[in-house]
């Protein structure tokens, strides 16, 4: 099996462990990814905050390349890129927008590609397929599945899961044997791209997410978005400094958790690149209790 791949810029930088862990897991499942040759940035928040047409033209450019290269489905692990790509497909249904964007990209547009986020992709591969490769017991892991904003909203664009109470990530986490917790902040915003310009806002919002996950008994937060990961993991260092007595919690990509269930090591999955260490909490329950 082979699927098109739009990694997005973060997966070769701040979220390289997302790229590494996803590829390791797919290797185990004998699934191949074919990267779109010549893909470019989706424009992220900066494009849609400054130019409507640019915010559509940039994703359309990569979608057209995928189509030219004969790809049918495009896996987009970054939630922000996924959101921009499906948003572009949605906007191109409007004839006036389509005419303007076609002029800008200098190509006629045709749809017919399926853009999949990571959760959709795992669901497409099937819980039974993934379960068949599980070798480790993860029953000691209590995961708070964090979707953030961009996987589920706006619902008429993504058409994915429930925008307030999504459950599809929990289905994957439970399929690999980990437990999930019910909590309140699974679709709250972490502050996203304000991380650089308004760090204090991001810290404030991320602290609320972290605190709610811990309060509901989670020992790990699971994400499928590089921006969310960066804000909850790297920025947790600032939160610890700003709030004495702050409890910490590791933050893993969904692909990393699936990889752990398949018997891969923290190093193999590049979990050791995280700022908040995950090794203690991921030890089997007996080992933690015995310590």
């Amino acid at each position, binding site marked *: 099996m082979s699927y098109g791949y739009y990694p997005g*810029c*973060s997966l*070769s*930088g*701040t*979220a*390289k462990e997302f790229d590494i862990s996803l590829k390791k897991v797919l290797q185990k499942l004998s699934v191949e990814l074919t990267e779109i*040759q*010549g*893909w*470019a*940035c989706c*424009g*992220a*928040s*900066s*494009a*849609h*905050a*400054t*130019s*409507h*047409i*640019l915010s559509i*033209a*940039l994703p359309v*450019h990569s979608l057209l*390349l995928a189509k030219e290269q004969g790809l049918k489905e495009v896996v987009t692990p970054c939630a922000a890129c996924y959101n921009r790509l499906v948003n572009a497909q949605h906007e191109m249904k409007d004839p006036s927008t389509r005419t*303007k964007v076609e*002029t*800008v*990209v*200098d190509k006629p547009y045709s749809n017919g590609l399926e853009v999949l986020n990571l959760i959709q992709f795992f669901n497409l591969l099937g819980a039974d397929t993934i379960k068949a490769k599980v070798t480790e017991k993860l029953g000691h892991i209590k995961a708070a599945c964090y979707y953030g904003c961009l996987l589920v909203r706006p619902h008429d664009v993504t058409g994915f899961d429930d925008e307030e109470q999504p459950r599809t990530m929990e289905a994957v986490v439970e399929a690999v044997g980990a437990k999930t917790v019910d909590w309140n902040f699974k679709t709250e915003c972490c502050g996203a*791209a*304000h991380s*650089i*310009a*308004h*760090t204090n806002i991001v810290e404030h919002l991320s602290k609320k997410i972290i605190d709610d996950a811990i309060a509901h008994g989670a020992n790990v937060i699971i994400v499928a978005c590089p921006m969310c990961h960066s804000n909850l993991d*790297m920025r947790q*260092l600032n939160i610890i400094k700003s709030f004495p007595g702050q409890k910490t919690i590791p933050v893993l990509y969904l692909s990393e958790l699936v990889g752990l269930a398949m018997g891969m090591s923290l190093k193999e999955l590049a979990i050791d*690149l995280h*700022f908040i260490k995950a090794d203690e909490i991921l030890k089997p329950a007996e080992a933690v209790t015995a310590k």
Partner: protein
Amino acid sequence: MDAVRELSVIYGMEAGDKDTAKFHEAFLDQIKNFGKSYELGLIMEYKMKTMHLMKDVELAPGMLMRGKMSLTPHLSKERKNIKKIMEKTKTPEHKDGERKGE
């Protein structure tokens, strides 16, 4: 909200939140130059534009040691076309907010 922000860019209005506006400028400059985001370039340009030179410097060693921030940009093979797209969207005929009545 985006529509109002976009109009403010078209009409050259001064941003109330200058830091965020400078961040967007710096981010888009990386895409224009490389076709992809270049994190180190973005941070350097943002710092020079805002003069927040010391902000987040304590995170830099950890980012670099983990290989989470590359010293050199990753280039898109399509960067020339991306640059054209970005230049075209700057011309008034492709702006969504048309300057009607002017």
